[in-house]
Structures are given as C-alpha cells and as structure tokens.
C-alpha cells in the first residue's frame, strides 16, 4: 500500500474535495452547515482546478435548493456527472426532484450535512430529521460517521451510483462531522481513478438526452401501467447493496480501510448491542471498547448503507449471541410507532432472524446536536440489562413530562489517558478559533499524532464567545463529544473568568493558561471567587501572559491568536520549542502570506515576543483569598417568572440542564427578553454633552442596538434623579419648559460608534469633540479611563427608563427629531456591532410597533430577532408590541400574506357582527367603530377606546343569559381587537426577496393586499457568510462570485413598480433619514402592497461599519443607490414617482473602493476589476436615466 498524504480538514472539505473531482456540473445554494462544500467547489472552480478528467467543473449558484435540484436534474438528464450539497430545509426543497431523479434511475450523489428540520423552532445544528424525511424518495443513503469516512464514502457513493444507477444521499452529521477538523488520509486522484469505472461514466453520458438519438423521459402514465413501471426498477435496488459492498472492498484494497454495509464492533459474543449511525456511533464505539475491556458482553452495529436496507446483511452482521438491542435514532417522528431506524431493525429481525427474537428497544438522542457522550451510550447499555427496558426512551435530556429519559452517570468517562485534551475560551474577534485550526494542522502535519478540533460558537453575531476543543495523541480519536476532563485550559479573555466556570472541566494536574492584564505577582489576587480554590484543589499549573500587551506592541491590535497559540505550544511541549515556533511561523506564512508580507511579519514578531512575556505562577505557597461565592442570582428579581426559570439558565450556559417541562409545548416564547441579558461587550461607549447637543435625534435613529435613547419630560421628574443624571432644556416649541435627556445603556452598547459618526454637532473650540463622544468604560481588564462610568451610566439608565414616554399624539412622527422620541420596541439584539439592518427595524417598531405583526424570513434578521435565549422584539408599558414569527426562508411573503388574509377575513366578519349587533350595541358606537379614521395616532387611540367600550358592552350582553345575541357577542368579543388598525410587515433580506422567496414575493405584491414588505438589502446572503445573491452588485466579490459578480444587480423596485399598484420606495437612512421615515409612513398608509428596499451596510462588505452612514451617503451620491418613492395612491394628483436624490455627483469608485468586497477584485484580477467597474459605472448612468425619465412622466 502506498504512503498517502495526510491532510487536516473538516468534513465539508473532505466531501467537497472528492465531489469536485468526480463531477462536471455542480449546482449550489448556501445553507448551514453545508455551505462550505459549495464554497469550496466555487473557489476551486474560480482557481481553475481540474476534475479527474482534466476539466474544471461548472459551478453554478441557483436561487434556491429547489432550483439547484432542478438544475441538477436537468444536467443529469442531459448526461453530465452532476452533484450538489445541502442540508435540512434545503433537502426538503430538493425532494420533488429527488423522487424524479430516482424514478428515472439517474446516477448522482448529493452530499448532505444532516441538520435538524425546523419544527417548533429552527435549528442550524445536526440530526437526522432531514435525511430521514428523504427516505421515501428512493435514494440510496450512505452515512459517514467521521471526517475520514466522509472522504471515503463520497468516493464509494459515487463509484456505486454509477454502477447501480440508484442515486445516493451521502450524509454525515451537521457541525459534529461537517465542521470537525480531523487529520485524515487523503484520497489521491489515482485512488479516485481506480475506483471510478470509465465505462460507467460513458454509459451515464450516453443515457443523456440527445436529438441524435431522441427519447422521451418523464411521461404521464395512467392506472394501466404506472404501478408496473414503479416496480420495474426493483432489480436495481436488489443489487445496490452488493455494489456498495464491492466498492467498499475495492477501497479497502487500495487504502486498507475496510468498511461493510453494517459494521459490527465489540465482543464477538455480545448480548447487548446498540444499532446506530452517524457521528454518535464513534462515541458508542469508544464506549464499547472501554466496557468490553472490563469484560462486558456488548457491541455496536454501525449502519453504513441505510437505504436500500439489506436485512440479510444486517442480520448476518449481528452476533448470534445478541439478546437485547437498542436502536438509536437521531430524529423524532411524533406519532409514529418508533423512529425510522428502529422500525427498520424490527422489520429486518422479524423477517430474517431465525433464532429467538432479541429484545428490541428504540430511543432518541442527539437532536439538534445535543451532546451524545460515552456516559449516555453506557446508560443505554445499562438499560438493556433490565428485564423490562424502557422503550421509546430518550437519552441526553431530562424528560420530566413523559418520563422517557434514561438516567446518565455523568462521571463515566472513556477518554484515553494518552490523548491530550485542550479547551480554549476565546472571543470571536480575538482569532482564537483560527489559531486553533492552525494548531490542529501543525500537530497533524508535524507529528505522527492523530488530531481533532471542534469549535462551538454562541448565537450572537457581536461579542460572541468561542470555545475550541482540541484532542491529539498517538491513538485514533473517536470522541465525537465535547471535552470534560481537559489537560489544558486556556482562557483568552480575563473577564470570562466571571462568566464561565471553565476550571470545572479541568482535569487534576491540568495546565491553565490565562491571558491576564495582571502579571505573575498580581494575578492571584485578581482571580474571581472559586477559581483560586479550584487551582489549588486540582493542583492546576497556572501560566499567565498579557496577550493584549504583546499584541499592541507588535501591531496585532486585538488579535491575540498567534500569541496564545505560541504559549500553547511552549507549555504543551508537543513539539520541541524551536520546531514549534518554526511550524507556527510556517502556518502563519501559509495562512497570511498572500495578504502581504507586513501581515506575516507582525505575526512573526508576535510569536518572537511571546515567550519573554509568558510566566508560570508558582502556587506552592498560595492560599485561597477569595472565598467561593454563592451561586449568583441568574436574573434580577423584577424579571418575569419565565425569564427567571428558563431564560436565565440558558444565559448562564445551563440550558442543557433544563427539563422538558420547562419548555413551551408549541415553541411560543415571551418577547422583550434581551433587556435581561446584559452582555457588557463595549470597551467604550458614547457619552453625552448636553450643552453641545442640538437634540436632532440622529444618533438615536442610527443606533443598531437601541442603546441610545432620548426623552423629553416635565422638569419635576428630575426630583428623584441620580446626581450624575444629565438633562438640558428641551428644544421643542410645543414643550416649552420641558427637559431633554439623551441616555445610553452601557451594558447593552456594542461600542460601534455609528452614533458618534451621525452626530452633526461639533464643539466649536475643539472640533474633535461632538455632542456625543466615545469614552472608555472601566472594564474587567482594568484598562478603563473613567473608573465609574459604567456604574454611573447604569444608574442613569435605570432612572431614565422610569421617565414617562411622551404622548405619541403630541408628536409629528414624520420628522426625524420627533420620531426618535417614540419608544423603540426592538432593542439590544445580538446583531453585529454597527449593523445596518437593525436601525430600520427599530424605526418600524417606533412608528408602528404597538400594532405590528411581523413575518420574518429566515436570515440574519430571524437570527438576531429570534435566536434564543432572548429576543429583541419588545413590549411597551401597556404590554403591546410587535408580534413576530418566522416560518421559513422561502415562503415569508406568503406567510405574511396569510396574516393579512386572516385580518381581512376577521375584520370583515367583525364588521358583519357589528351590523348584526347594532341594535343592542347602539348605532352610534357601531357607526363610530366602522367609520373610524385610523390614519393617525389620535384616531387609532380613539378607536382603541371604542373597542374597549365595545368589549364592555359585549361582556354585558354575555352576562344576560337570556340574550339571543350571545353567540354573536362571544364571537365579536374574540375578534374585537382586529378593529384596531394593524400593520402587517413582511421582513427579510435580499437572499429571500431577490432569490429564494422572489416567486412568492412577486405573487404577494400582485395580490393587491395591504401588506408592507421591508427588504433589508445587504446585497449578499449575510447570515450564511456572504454568498452572492441577485442583489449583489456587479463587480463585488462574494462567495459564489469569487471572481467578482459579472451581472448587474436585479432592479427589484422596478419590477415591482411594473404592476402600477405597488408602493415602492428605495431608502438609505445614512443618506436621507427624513426620506426613510416618509417612505415608511407612506408605505404603511398605502392600502395595498408596499415594498421598501433599504440599503443595509453589512460586515460582509468589509470596512469599518462606523462609516456605514458615510458609505450609504456615497452610494446615493454616486447614483448607485438612487432614493425614490413610487406611490400609486397619488397617481391621480401628480407624479407617482418621486426621485428623492440628486443626479450622480461623483464617480462610482469614490464609493465602492472603500469596501473590501470591491477592492479585493482589484487585488486579485485587476483587468476584470477594471472591466466590471466600467460596466458598473455604465449601469449607474443607465439606471439613473431610467429613473429620471420615470420622474418626468406626466400623469394622464
């Protein structure tokens, strides 16, 4: 056997590397956690890498997974080797085509990073609910349990499908396998060549449709023959398992890795056996090894080829001694007799087991990437010892409702003592994960050790915490679970010591590396309660380094990755120090070399300076000086019960401990919960200068996190104000004598500085000062300039919140100044610092939040809006606020239309009931209710009062038992609230509106119904990491458009305007905030469909988002993003189309080359950049001319 290259890759790359080389056409669409497979394919195609036949596969991004499957189907039907990658909802969208592809016996492999299907909630994490839903499609299903298997099975599946003609789903666990970095043996082109039969490739090609030999495929059949036709392919399914086994044997000949359709491991005379598939089987295998070593008669049967299920092979793989079987499914089928694998195993045994039937139980584990540990596997084996083992059990949760869960002994542990286990706690921005990925590669490449890396992120896009889990050692690693007994724990942020009990997972004698602003002499006293004690109790060796100091000195800024990585290697001694440093530098050069020598050099300097600043703290004579504190209260006493009992635990990282009974049964959660999550992530916050402030409200307007607020109030409210509370005379004519305060919430601020950039008021003596200025907060790092600022501003914020909100009726909400006195009902989201989307949502809630119902497409806005533990959608003092729901990515327009249909119907019915009850309710009340003018705040409030009167009247009727109107009254009472004007909003990003949801959006816009569509246009799929959409502009680089997008951005507004009945506005608040408000108000007022296209700057544009407003301005000034409003309601009075911005006054380059997404192309392909620039500049002129012509059109 030849020596093969060892590579350190994750599951996605392992799959893509084979798929890319074995296909000619690849249709892609991003979806977590499979996106990276498509990204690799796209990137390699851009780099002109070749497939096995010496040509670069054609990679095409489609508008949805449905589109991708359609394109794949077409490419296959016409004879190309074709593939795609997907997960979860994406696989669901592919299914209609998958039935067809299988029905037509077409050879292909879809590589699936198996992910949870959205049910009571969306989840991006891994389980088998998606692939199990596809089992009726007639596709073969091959499951890989580890990164090596992903690499191997991608090849086996392709070799087998060509021979079998049965299409294959090759799947592996999302995140746990798709994102696990592992050292594996690479398959060379020669290996691929040896496995792929060229004759079969030619046969596949020959089956392609061609007019040279025309055939018809996809006929419509009648009752006479359809059934027979469906049975005609049976022989292909019968031979499929043998073909797969044959391919597995062939691979074994080549590589020595022997797989079987069902792989049994464990005692040959096992009595208790677990049957399962996926990454969990690796953990089960490790458990079996540990327990059989203790003499237990147990085993594990790993299912490789799940479909076609070969019962014969299954039964023969199972030891004859088996007495009890537990079948583990990583999915749930409510209402079924058991989950799919369980049912298949039962059927297989019933049909083929000749001896006495073993006891068979089924259970669920690992939904949505829930941990599956050796202790859990042991719990299952233990359960099988019982005479009456629990069937339909769950493991890994506490089910105190249906009592399905097994008890787990969490102290059981199978970690190999020779495997080194490390945990690193980092901040997203500090580069910890990237460095650890490099470390894994270094260990993988420089040593003979096996190596594994797995990374966990929290659900926030700003200030997020990362945890890296690294294992390495001389033995193969099968541990597909997180580390609980670490030999090495690194804390890359000192303040995390207060957040996480990270030493809980430290093994006795472990090393603890701490990035500390305090040196070896001072650090001990600064350690929080509990940490000192654990260090002494577990004899932990403590090392400290001031990583930020070294980073500052070497020009690394906030990136301490290289520094901490060097410490890790220096302390761990896994490589000789000099060799380690050389390897780190080599990795730096590989990772950063192409970004320029300066970057490499600063990293080198960081490496070189690190060791001189690394100290071991001798703990020999140290004593615990900080007593172990009582567990902190998780949520303040005034928080609602649900927050105290449930949300707070999730916030504390204890969500795994919550029992089933703590969960809402239908996925319904309270809103307004971000206020209980104080994240404390800003290093500096804006501080107000009341003397300079002109009270324009612009800072409040742009704040993405609603942490900067303003109020006006009568002066007597200041009587109980904290001494540091600031105020100024209110500059409102209507509120003579009132006071004004601009207040921030320091614990919720992300420090993005957008507000300061927006502030127009400059200090006349010192122009660098404005009416608000970023000021350092005292932080846990002790580097703050104003020791009490956080405390002072927190007290001020508490007081500020108690100040009354101003009466909405007294305000002119169409002015920016007044609008910002309205309470936002969207606050403190987990969006990126400086997010360009959230200010629009906040504005929406200020204007209409009290009566808004929102359908939100999947994407960034559904994640920062609805990803637990908390939601930024909030309520006012009256308990009213936006009601919010996310259905899917693709159907959001239709989902929102559904809201409207309900409302329209209910309003109609309520009106009918009012007419029917007019006699008893009184004509005047009914008339007033029916004819209410709700076009303004006062009118709405009056109607609210009328509805209350109506409810009182209806309740009176209900008290009169003899009343003949009881039924109608009861009905009207349940519908009365719809008489208050509601505002239906359909919100989503460009990926939804321009691509996957466009068909539905188009239909909804054409429906004439009164819905308001807000498109937060970031011009890429931001949430999945910046893939191109049809909103991506020409010349911009994005994933799936690595060579710069060659086509112009779709003009969605123009398409909508073509109906003539849709209100359309294009806004950019940074360019014209007043126009933005005007558009929101007009759109909402328009009694038909409205579409607002909102320019949203985004982290995926690649510049400092504090300049987001400036860039918006430039987008407008260059004519790239003209502002306009098209209002069909005023067609009769004059121009329906109003251009709200001026003709282009600067070349496009002044705007675009401030952003990495454009600039990058000039650095990778200058000629193409120049060409696309010219075209993009021409697009601007052409479109501007069109708009100008529209604006000039006179009404008839």
């Amino acid at each position: 056997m030849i020596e093969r290259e060892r590579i350190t890759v994750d599951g996605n790359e392992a799959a893509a590397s084979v798929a890319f080389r074995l296909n000619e056409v690849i249709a892609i669409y991003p979806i977590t956690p499979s996106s990276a497979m498509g990204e690799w394919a796209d990137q390699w195609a851009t780099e002109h890498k070749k497939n096995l036949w010496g040509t670069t596969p054609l990679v095409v991004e489609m508008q949805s997974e449905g589109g991708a499957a359609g394109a794949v189907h077409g490419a296959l039907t016409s004879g190309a080797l074709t593939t795609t990658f997907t997960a979860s909802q994406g696989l669901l969208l592919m299914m209609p085509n998958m039935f067809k592809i299988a029905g037509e016996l077409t050879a292909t492999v879809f590589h699936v990073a198996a992910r949870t299907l959205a049910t009571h909630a969306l989840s991006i994490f891994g389980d088998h609910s998606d692939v199990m839903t596809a089992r009726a499609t007639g596709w073969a299903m091959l499951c890989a349990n580890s990164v090596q298997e992903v690499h191997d099975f991608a090849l086996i599946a392709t070799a087998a499908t060509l021979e079998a003609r049965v299409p294959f789903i090759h799947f592996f666990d999302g995140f746990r396998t798709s994102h696990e970095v592992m050292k594996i043996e690479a398959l060379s082109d020669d290996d691929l060549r040896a496995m792929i039969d060229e004759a079969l490739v030619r046969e596949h090609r020959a089956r392609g449709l061609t007019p040279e030999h025309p055939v018809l495929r996809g006929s419509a059949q009648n009752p006479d023959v359809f059934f027979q036709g469906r049975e005609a392919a049976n022989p292909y399914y019968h031979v499929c398992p043998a073909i797969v086994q044959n391919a597995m044997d062939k691979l074994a000949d080549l590589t020595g890795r022997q797989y079987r359709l069902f792989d049994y491991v464990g005692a040959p005379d096992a009595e208790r056996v677990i049957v399962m598939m996926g990454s969990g089987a690796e953990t089960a295998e490790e458990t079996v090894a540990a327990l059989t070593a203790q003499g237990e008669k147990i085993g594990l049967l790993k299912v490789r080829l799940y479909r076609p299920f070969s019962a014969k092979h299954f039964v023969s793989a199972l030891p004859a001694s088996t007495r009890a079987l537990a079948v583990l499914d990583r999915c749930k089928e409510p209402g079924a007799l058991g989950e799919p694998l369980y049912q298949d195993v039962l059927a297989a045994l019933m049909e083929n087991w000749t001896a006495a039937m073993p006891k068979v139980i089924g259970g669920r584990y690992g939904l949505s990437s829930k941990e599956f540990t050796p202790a859990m596997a042991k719990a299952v084996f233990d359960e099988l010892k019982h005479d009456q083992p629990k069937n339909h059990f769950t493991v890994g949760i506490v089910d105190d409702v249906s009592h399905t869960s097994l008890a787990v002994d969490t102290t059981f542990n199978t970690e190999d003592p020779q495997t080194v286990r490390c945990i690193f706690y980092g901040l997203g921005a500090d580069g910890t994960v990237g460095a650890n990925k490099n470390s894994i590669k270094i260990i993988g490449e420089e040593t003979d050790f096996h190596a594994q890396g797995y990374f966990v992120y929290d659900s926030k896009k700003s200030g997020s915490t990362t945890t890296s889990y690294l294992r390495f050692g001389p033995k193969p690693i099968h541990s597909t679970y997180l580390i609980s007994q670490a030999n090495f724990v690194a804390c890359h942020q000192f303040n995390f010591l207060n957040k996480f009990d990270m030493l809980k997972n430290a093994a006795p004698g472990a090393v603890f590396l701490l990035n500390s602003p305090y040196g070896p002499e001072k650090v001990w006293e600064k350690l929080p309660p509990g940490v000192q004690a654990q260090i002494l109790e577990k004899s932990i060796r403590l090392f400290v380094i001031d990583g930020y100091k070294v980073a500052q000195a070497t020009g690394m800024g906030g990136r301490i990755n290289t520094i901490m990585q060097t410490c890790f290697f220096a302390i761990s001694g896994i490589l000789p120090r000099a060799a380690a440093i050389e390897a780190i530098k080599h990795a730096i050069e590989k990772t950063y070399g192409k970004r320029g020598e300066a970057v490499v050099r600063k990293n080198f300097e960081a490496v070189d300076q690190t060791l001189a600043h690394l100290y071991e703290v001798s703990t020999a004579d140290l004593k615990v000086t900080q007593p172990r504190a009582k567990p902190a209260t998780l949520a303040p006493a005034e928080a609602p019960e649900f927050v105290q009992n449930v949300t707070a635990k999730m916030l504390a990282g204890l969500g795994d401990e919550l029992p089933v009974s703590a969960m809402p049964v239908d996925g319904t959660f309270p809103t307004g919960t971000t206020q209980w999550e104080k994240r404390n992530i800003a290093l500096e916050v804006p501080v107000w200068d009341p003397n300079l402030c002109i009270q324009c409200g612009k800072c409040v307007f742009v704040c993405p996190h609603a942490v900067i607020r303003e109020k006006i109030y009568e002066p007597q409210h200041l009587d109980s104000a904290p001494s540091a509370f600031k105020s100024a005379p209110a500059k409102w004519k209507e509120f003579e004598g009132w006071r004004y305060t601009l207040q921030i919430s320091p614990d919720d601020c992300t420090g993005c500085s957008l507000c300061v950039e927006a502030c127009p008021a400059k200090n006349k003596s010192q122009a660098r000062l404005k009416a608000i200025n970023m000021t350092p907060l005292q932080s846990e790092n002790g580097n703050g300039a104003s020791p009490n600022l956080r405390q002072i501003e927190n007290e001020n914020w508490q007081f500020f919140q108690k100040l009354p909100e101003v009466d909405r009726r007294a305000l002119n909400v169409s002015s920016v100044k007044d609008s910002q006195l309205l309470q936002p009902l969207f606050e403190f989201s987990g969006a990126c610092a400086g997010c360009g989307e959230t200010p629009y949502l906040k504005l929406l809630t200020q204007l209409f939040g009290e009566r808004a119902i929102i359908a939100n497409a999947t994407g960034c806005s559904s994640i920062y809006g609805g990803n637990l533990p908390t939601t930024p959608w909030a309520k006012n003092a009256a308990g009213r606020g936006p009601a919010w729901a996310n259905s899917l990515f693709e159907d959001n327009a239709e989902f929102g239309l559904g809201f409207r249909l309900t409302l329209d119907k209910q309003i109609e019915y309520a009106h009918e009931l009012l007419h029917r009850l007019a006699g008893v309710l009184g004509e005047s009340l009914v008339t007033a209710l029916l004819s209410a003018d709700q076009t303004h705040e006062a009118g709405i409030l009056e109607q609210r009062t009328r509805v209350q009167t109506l409810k009182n009247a209806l309740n009176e009727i209900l008290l009169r038992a003899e009343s003949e109107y009881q039924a109608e009254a009861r009905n009207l009472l349940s519908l009365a609230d719809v008489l208050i004007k509601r505002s239906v909003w359909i919100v989503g990003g460009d990926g939804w509106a321009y691509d996957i949801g466009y068909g539905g959006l188009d239909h909804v816009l054409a429906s004439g119904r009164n819905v308001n569509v807000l498109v937060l246009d970031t011009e890429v799929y931001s949430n999945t990491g910046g893939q191109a959409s049809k909103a991506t502009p020409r010349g911009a680089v994005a994933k799936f458009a690595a060579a710069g997008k060659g086509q112009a951005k779709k003009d969605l507004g123009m398409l909508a305007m073509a109906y003539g009945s849709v209100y359309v506005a294009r806004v950019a608040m940074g360019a014209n905030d007043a126009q933005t408000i005007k558009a929101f108000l007009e759109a909402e007022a328009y009694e038909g469909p409205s579409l607002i296209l909102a320019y949203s700057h985004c982290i995926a544009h690649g510049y400092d988002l504090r300049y987001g407003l400036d860039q918006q301005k430039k987008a407008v000034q260059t004519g790239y993003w003209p502002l306009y409003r098209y209002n069909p309601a005023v067609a009769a009075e004059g121009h329906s189309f109003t251009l709200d911005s001026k003709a282009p006054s600067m070349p496009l380059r002044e705007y675009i080359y401030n952003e990495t997404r454009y600039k990058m192309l000039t650095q990778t392909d200058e000629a193409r950049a120049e060409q696309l620039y010219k075209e993009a500049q021409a697009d601007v002129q052409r479109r501007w001319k069109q708009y100008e012509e529209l604006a000039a059109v006179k009404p008839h």
Partner: protein
Amino acid sequence: MRIAPAHFLLRSPAKQTMTDLTTTYLGLTLKSPLVASPSPLCKSLSNIRHMEDAGVGAVVLHSLFEEQINHESHSLDYYLSRGSESFAEALNYFPEPNAYRLSPHQYLEHIRKATEMVDIPIIASLNGVSSGGWVQRASHSDWIKYAALMEEAGADALELNLYFVPADSDILSETVEDMYADLLIDVRNTVSIPIAMKLTPFFSSLPNLARRLVFAGAKGLVLFNRFYQPDLDIENLEVVPHLHLSTSDELRLPLRWIAILYGRLNADLALSTGVHTAQDALKGLMAGASVTMMTSALLQHGIDYVRVVTEEMRAWLAEHDYESVGQLQGSLSQQAVPFPAAFERAQYVKIVGTLEPGPERR
C-alpha cells in the same frame, strides 16, 4: 482629461528646426529635457506610451508609498479576518483567493511592463519616511527593499521622495538631515541604478544638505516636491486633504535654488514645480537644471501638451540660434550671471524697492 487649447496645436511650426534637445540626467541620455513627473497619469501604460510619443525625455512613475506597502496588507488582513470564526453560520464573509496582487506587486509589474513597452527611461519613485528604529516600529527594510525590487523590475533610475513633516519639537534639524542621508545610503547599498533625491525646500541650509546627499551617493536632486497641504473646511469643522495644481508662479522657488546649486555639486539637478510653458522649462534649464519636470500642466492640458511645449522650446531655441539645450544649461545660474547676489538677499531689497501698488489698492 482636458485637451490642450487648440491655438497651441494649430500654431505654425514654421520656425521649427531640429534643435538638439538631448540632455543627460542621472547618467541617462534623454531625448528631451521635458520629463513627466509622478502623477496619476503614470498609472496607465497607455498614458506612458502616449507620453513617449508626445516627446517626453523620461517618465517618473507615480510613487509607491511606504504606507501603501504595509497598510494595504494590514487592511486586507483586518477586513478578511473581521467577524470571522465568531458565528456558527458564517465562519467568514469572503472567499479566500489563492493570491492577491497587492499594490507593491502591481507597481513592480507596472515598471516591468512600462520598461518593456517604451524606449525612454522609466524612473521609479519610492516615497517613504521611516528608517531603522527612527520612526517607531517601522522597520525600514519594509519599504527600502522595494528599491531593489524596482531595479530588478527594470527601472532605469530611482527617485527617492522622503516626505517627512517634523512636527515633534524634540527633533533637531540635524537629526532630520541625518535621516535623509542615512536613508539614502541604505538605499544606495541595495541598488546599482542611479538615485535622485527629491527634496522639500524646507531646510535651513539646503546647499549643505545637498552636498551631503551627493556625497552619500545621490546622482541627482529634484527640487522640489509639493506637499499635500491640508485645508480647513470651516463649515464642517474638518481638516481636509487638498492638492491643487501648481502654476508658473511657483517656478521661482526651485529656480533660485537650482541656480544657486548649479555647478557646485557633482550631481544633476531636476526642476520640479511650476513648469507650465516652454518659457518655464527654458528658465529651468538656464538656471542649471538638466531636466524640467511637468505634472500639473499635463493634468490640466493633457499629455499632448508636451508636443506644444517641445515645439515652442525648439522654436525659441531656433529663433535665438541655440544649437542644443546643453548650450544654455546653467547659462543663468548664480555662477554664470554678472550679479550673483541677485539670487540672494540683495534681490529682496530690489524687489521691495520697485514694487508699486497693484490695481486693487487704488
């Protein structure tokens, strides 16, 4: 780009004779003393070809800035890393191409292409300030090594532009001058092509510095560079960078110093700033310059304006019976004029004495 006014182009070439415009600069033979100095025009290869066709003797390319060399990679690195590995669904936001062609590389490629394309000398320009340890944390090997790379790419000569504003009151004048000389020596040691130093006029003893620099290895001095002078936006209370084009009026400062330095140094002098007309160029040559450099005039009138100036120069030279520019070079330098003090303080007295109130004072 504006085209030269028609009257220039239409002027009859009646008097045109083939007066020899050849000059030598930095040891290079140039077919004309008109040299295109650094401007955005030089970024385009077709412009460089155009300049050659229009008759320039050499082209000094736009500058590669020290800041560019580091800043571009740092910012690329920063924005590609920003937000990465923080959120499970978006581990990064950009595709990662195999290679970038950052400005320094593009610059070198530009030299390579330009030198292959035209016959006139291509002078590369390197603009920096930091020296080893002198300006904190910037190692001068960062950018100085680009001098060698420029030579390797084919540059015929190097113009070293040290742009330094001594804002720190602790820095002695002598320290600044040492830095200039030290940097020059460092560059000198890495290349064998000739080096011209481009200077600012803001030195207390320019002739002494000039001598030091020539001693340190400068083959030529370019007088003077023009700073980006900041302007103040009084409406928005901001400092705004501002570069306005030169006028013929600005000619007189370099003219004086070239006249003073001519003949006292073993180096060529180039006059830069204020050369807009044939008369300006002739004045520069007469003061002692080997070449006169044009930027603003080309930006204003277009590259073809070189033809106009060349023809006017030829016409003037022919009209005044000069056979070559060599003949008039330095003819009005301080050493060559009857009243050398005219270039010094005495001239001040004379001007003040003859100054009459302008029309606006009446």
